[in-house]
């Protein structure tokens, strides 16, 4: 994508997709881009870390293996706390989702690395998978009764014409809120970092140190947010799966 001179130093420039190869299948452009590279790096980091640090024969784990086990237990605990015993089936999916978002965010924190979770299309796709999957799960578990999910018991009958549409809208907006939350956090954080980085260069004399200090602090905050958003994504997925089992 040819960028104009005015956009050269835009804080949003970092979100530009740059194709590295040009491939087309059936008229669709599936070029390998910097976003794809980030995804591949993310998946490589996750799979290599989880494979290399875990020695199946070791009873006593070393530090790195402990990290893998902690992550495993963290998500397993999250699932059993929110969904209970039904949740074991979805553990690989929730774990993959959590790791994908978490490491994707973390890879994005590396300077010059692209943050694929800052693209609404990616987060929306992930959220849609969760939404569609959970909806199918709900219908599989409850059949047509799944629609009672929108009916809140114990409310005066004249409230239902108001409440049912609200429930339906809130249900349908789940993938949007789920995806926009992650996307907006990543977008805002990285934009902020870039803006302050611009200040470092733009400020006269040594006053540029001040925004640099801010960048250091913000980087810490961003790493926290990177984890937090992955956690929120995972826990909301768990809660949605729980909803598919226990309607109300």
């Amino acid at each position, binding site marked *: *994508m040819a960028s104009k001179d005015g956009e050269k130093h835009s804080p949003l420039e970092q979100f530009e997709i740059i194709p590295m190869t040009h491939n087309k299948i059936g008229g669709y452009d*599936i070029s390998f881009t910097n976003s794809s590279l980030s995804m*591949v790096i993310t998946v490589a980091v996750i*799979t290599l870390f989880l494979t290399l640090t875990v020695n199946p024969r070791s*009873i006593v784990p070393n530090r790195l293996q402990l990290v893998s086990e902690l992550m495993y237990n963290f998500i397993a605990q999250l699932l059993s706390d929110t969904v209970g015993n039904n949740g074991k089936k979805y553990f690989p999916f929730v774990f993959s989702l959590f790791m994908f978002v978490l490491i994707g965010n973390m890879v994005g924190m590396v300077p010059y690395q692209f943050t694929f979770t800052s693209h609404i299309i990616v987060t929306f796709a992930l959220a849609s998978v969760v939404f569609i999957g959970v909806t199918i799960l709900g219908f599989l578990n409850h059949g047509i009764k799944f629609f009672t999910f929108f009916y809140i018991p114990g409310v005066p009958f004249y409230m239902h014409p108001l409440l049912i549409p609200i429930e339906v809208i809130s249900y349908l907006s789940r993938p949007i809120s789920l995806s926009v939350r992650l996307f907006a956090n990543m977008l805002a954080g990285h934009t902020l970092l870039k803006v302050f980085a611009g200040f470092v260069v733009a400020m006269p004399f040594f006053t540029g140190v001040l925004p640099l200090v801010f960048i250091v602090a913000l980087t810490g905050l961003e790493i926290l947010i990177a984890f937090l958003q992955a956690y929120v994504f995972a826990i909301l997925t768990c809660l949605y799966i729980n909803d598919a089992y226990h309607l109300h």
Partner: protein
Amino acid sequence: MPQLNPEFFVSQLFWLVVTFSFLLVFLWRISLPRIGSVLDKRERKISEDLATAKKLQAEAENIQEQIDSQLIQARSQATNILKQTSNSLQNKAGEELENLDKELDLKINDSAKTIEKNKKESLENIENQINDITKLTLSKIIKLNISDEEIKKAVKSAGRSVN
């Protein structure tokens, strides 16, 4: 905003599907079972060790009880043996004392008899000699032949009165 440019939407979705599917399958099939098996193994090992420890503790308590009971038994046996030994020793000592008493009695009796005999013999000797002397004296004083029997009788009667 580059996020709203649909030019690379398909590419992003395509690579998302590719990478995430790979990740999901890889973790599902390889990584997670491995970690899960390690955790399971550890949990099993810990519970096994705990069970073994419990068993060993029970065994140790058992053995301790056995030792205690054996000690009590041994102590009572020892006191029994001590009692028996002292009893038998006392009996033996009593018997030996009795035996000694008997022997001493016998010896005392023997001695008394010997003394009596000696005394008798001595007295007889003395009597004989008195008889002889009497006879000799009488024969010297008066020429009278007196039989030994008569002298004996006379001496005896005299002796009796003297005695």
